[in-house]
């Protein structure tokens, strides 16, 4: 209807309505004249008026009529999308479940022909466009960090009044579900927490705070147990207080309010930091607290703070100390883990881990230590089952072994024995393997023990780049093995193995009287640990190159790749001066090590050169691979 017509119709309608029935017809005839349609419009409207009044149409306010909507639409009504239904370019395949923030569906992106997870966001969020946009920004910012532990966000979209988030689809389960089915081993708990913290490290560096770290927001991929942290930025959506401000602030946003309406609940208070539970500004350290709670829960099977009501929980968070893990956990808890959790759960954030990186270092180091211990335990156990030695005799014997093998004598020896006892005991098996392979005196039963062990395999290649006056001159290229190098070539060694093990890389300079240098591990590479996980790719030196001496000669790079730690080298590491690039200053240690390296058998080693890609694969059925790469240069 055109506005003029509307004016006309409404004027006639209102006048007609004021008249009695019989007067009305005459009035309409007069007003509308020959305009039949005008008269019809008005008559129809009058009829509508009569019916509407009779039915009580709009008689009571809308809220009263649709009260049911307000009482149930958020917490009880679930919107279900059906298979084949389209949301934008996404075709729904199946419902995956309800996430913390809404329904999650598996869908096919029809444009890119890939599977995605679609998270349908609570509808009321859509009401605040600005907040939505900021959320979208932040979610994308976190995703674009390309950190493998951060879930990739593809798109944030709206369709048919539903707001949704399209993300990478992970085949797996949430940590919450995972915890229901498993009693986690310590190493697994540490592995999961390290990955969560690695995600936070990257996000925090980009000034993105997660704000809602909890087991529901952590996915574990079934195939490889890679951990993915979900919903960066989403927590902020549920917070009030910054909606009317522009700007993109991460760490000073305050006050924080958690809404009370169901369906809009910010998960739970159980994982909230003290500052968060008080509605104060939060920063990355709040995420560290929440991660501390998650670690605690993984180890103890329960969260440290839980009251009868959320308010009681908050009081506990603010005032109580977490009960020590040693009391609450069903398994034995290393003091170091106790310390880490306590530090993550310091009430005052200035006493907490200040950065995710610091927490990550501690978690990884502890994980490595436990890996070593369990490796030893496993090996020792297999020795026992083979009727070789009792664990205690293994330990005792091996405690003496390294000293008789290479250790310096006299006072120094005693001090060494005391200080390094732990390392030495840990390395028990390594010694036996090492002795076996170096002295060729392996007892037949020991061979039986190692028979089931997969062969040692180590792949290496050499990256070479020509430099001129300290600057790259040509593009780097890759070699499977040794050539005669030019003096202005700089090289780097790359290593990888399909199995887990202990790697030592030592350099022997051209002139034999020079000390050995431990290139790997070093405090700056792999945190000083020789333990290398399967498929872990190493670069030696890390972030740098080897330069050749000005004089012509041959550098020997020794690779020792072992199933267990090699105590001789573990001990020697203590003599390697990190500030001097790992050079071993002690002449006797040097001498013994060189001797062992030179004498170690190589006849059982298979060396396979490949050209595409250029690489060399070393294989042996023995517990230890020892191999020398000779880099001759002019």
């Amino acid at each position, binding site marked *: *209807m055109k506005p003029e017509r509307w004016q006309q119709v*409404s004027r006639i*309608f209102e006048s007609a309505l004021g008249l009695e029935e019989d007067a009305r017809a005459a009035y309409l005839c007069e007003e509308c004249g020959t305009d039949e349609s005008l008269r019809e419009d008005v008559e129809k409207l009058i009829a509508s*008026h009569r019916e509407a009044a009779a039915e009580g149409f709009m008689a009571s306010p809308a809220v009263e*009529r649709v009260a049911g909507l307000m009482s149930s639409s*958020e917490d009880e009504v679930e*919107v279900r999308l059906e298979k084949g239904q389209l949301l934008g370019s996404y075709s729904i395949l199946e419902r995956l479940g309800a996430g913390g923030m809404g329904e999650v569906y598996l869908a096919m992106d029809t444009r890119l022909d890939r599977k995605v997870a679609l998270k349908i966001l609570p509808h009321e969020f859509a009401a*605040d466009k600005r907040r939505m946009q900021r959320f979208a920004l932040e979610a994308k910012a976190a995703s674009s960090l390309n950190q493998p532990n951060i879930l990739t966000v593809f798109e944030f979209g709206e369709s048919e009044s539903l707001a949704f988030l399209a993300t990478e689809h992970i085949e797996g389960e949430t940590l919450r579900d995972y915890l229901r089915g498993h009693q986690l081993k310590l190493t697994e708990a540490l592995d999961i927490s390290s990955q969560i913290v690695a995600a936070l490290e990257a996000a925090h560096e980009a000034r993105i705070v997660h704000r809602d770290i909890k087991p529901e927001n952590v996915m574990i991929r079934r195939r490889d147990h890679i951990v993915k942290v979900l919903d960066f930025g989403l927590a902020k959506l549920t917070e009030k207080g910054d909606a009317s401000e522009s700007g993109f602030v991460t760490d000073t946003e305050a006050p924080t309010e958690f809404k*009370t309406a169901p369906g809009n609940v910010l998960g739970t208070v159980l994982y909230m930091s003290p500052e968060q539970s008080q509605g104060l500004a939060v920063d990355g350290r709040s995420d560290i607290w929440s991660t501390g709670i998650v670690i605690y829960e993984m180890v103890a099977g329960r969260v440290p703070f839980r009251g009868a009501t959320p308010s009681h929980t908050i009081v506990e968070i603010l005032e109580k100390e977490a009960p020590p893990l040693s009391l609450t956990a069903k398994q034995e808890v290393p003091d170091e883990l106790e310390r880490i959790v306590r530090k993550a759960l310091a009430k005052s954030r200035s006493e907490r881990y200040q950065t995710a990186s610091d927490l990550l270092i501690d978690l990884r180091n502890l994980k490595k230590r436990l890996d070593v211990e369990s490796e030893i335990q496993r090996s020792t156990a297999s020795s026992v089952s083979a009727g070789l030695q009792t664990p205690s005799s293994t330990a005792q014997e091996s405690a003496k072994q390294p000293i008789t093998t290479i250790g310096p004598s006299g006072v120094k020896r005693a001090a060494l024995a005391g200080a390094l006892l732990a390392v030495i005991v840990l390395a028990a098996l390594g010694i036996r393997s090492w002795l076996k392979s170096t002295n060729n005196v392996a007892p037949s039963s020991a061979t039986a023990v190692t028979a089931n062990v997969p062969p040692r395999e180590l792949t290496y290649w050499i990256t070479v780049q020509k430099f001129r006056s300290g600057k790259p001159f040509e593009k780097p290229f890759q070699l499977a093995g040794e050539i005669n190098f030019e003096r202005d070539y700089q090289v780097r060694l790359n290593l990888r193995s399909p199995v887990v093990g202990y790697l030592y890389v030592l350099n022997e300079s051209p002139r034999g009287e020079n000390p050995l240098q431990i290139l790997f591990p070093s405090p700056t590479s792999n945190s000083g640990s020789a333990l290398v996980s399967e498929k872990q790719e190493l670069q030696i030196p890390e972030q740098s190159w080897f330069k050749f001496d000005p004089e012509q000669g041959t550098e020997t790079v020794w690779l020792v790749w072992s199933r267990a730690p090699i105590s001789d080298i573990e001990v020697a590491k203590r003599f390697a001066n990190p500030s001097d690039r790992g050079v071993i200053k002690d002449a006797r240690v040097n001498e013994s090590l060189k001797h062992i390296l030179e004498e170690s058998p190589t006849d059982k080693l298979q060396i396979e050169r490949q050209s595409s890609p250029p690489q060399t694969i070393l294989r042996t059925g023995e517990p230890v691979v020892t191999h020398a790469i000779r880099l001759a240069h002019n």
Partner: protein
Amino acid sequence: MDGYKPKTVSRHPPISPHEITQLLIEWSGGNQAALDKLYPLVYDELRQMAHRFMRRERKGHTLQTTALIHEAYLRLVDRKDAHWTNRSHFFGMSAQIMRRILVDHARRYAYVKRGGGVQKVSLDEAALVTKDRARELLLLNEALEGLEKLDPRRSKVVELRYFGGLSNAEIAELLKISSNTVTRDWNMARAWIYQQMTDATA
């Protein structure tokens, strides 16, 4: 066990009642930016309050729009420096917001109709009634949108009365028209909306 639903952890309205009142004054003085700031605040407040009311309603209370908006007003606005004009402006805005809250909810609820396939589960009888009413509300809202283009004043009257629960006298005051005009506007608008809705469902 993990389903704790936190009560309000802290209530620091991001803007003080005094500021809200200032925003209302600025807005009634014609400053649209002030409304942009007010709108989300009042939206949140009303939505939460409506939910609280409705949870009580199940236990025998009835929800009254005016009571709702009155309470929101009392909570948000500093009464010391609020005059009557501010109040009616606030009520006017609240009507608009209530409309939006309800339509947002209805859209979600009645999605099956509009989206062509979104299903709602657990449809007991009450839910079916609600769903019908949700659809009805969406139709009504569409009609009202149409009316807005033809006749902004009449559509405003409908919004204030139907969504804001305002009395004719209050509407007259707010729109600066006579009470009789409000009655006439209402009749015309309601008849037209009814007709549009009947045509749409026919």
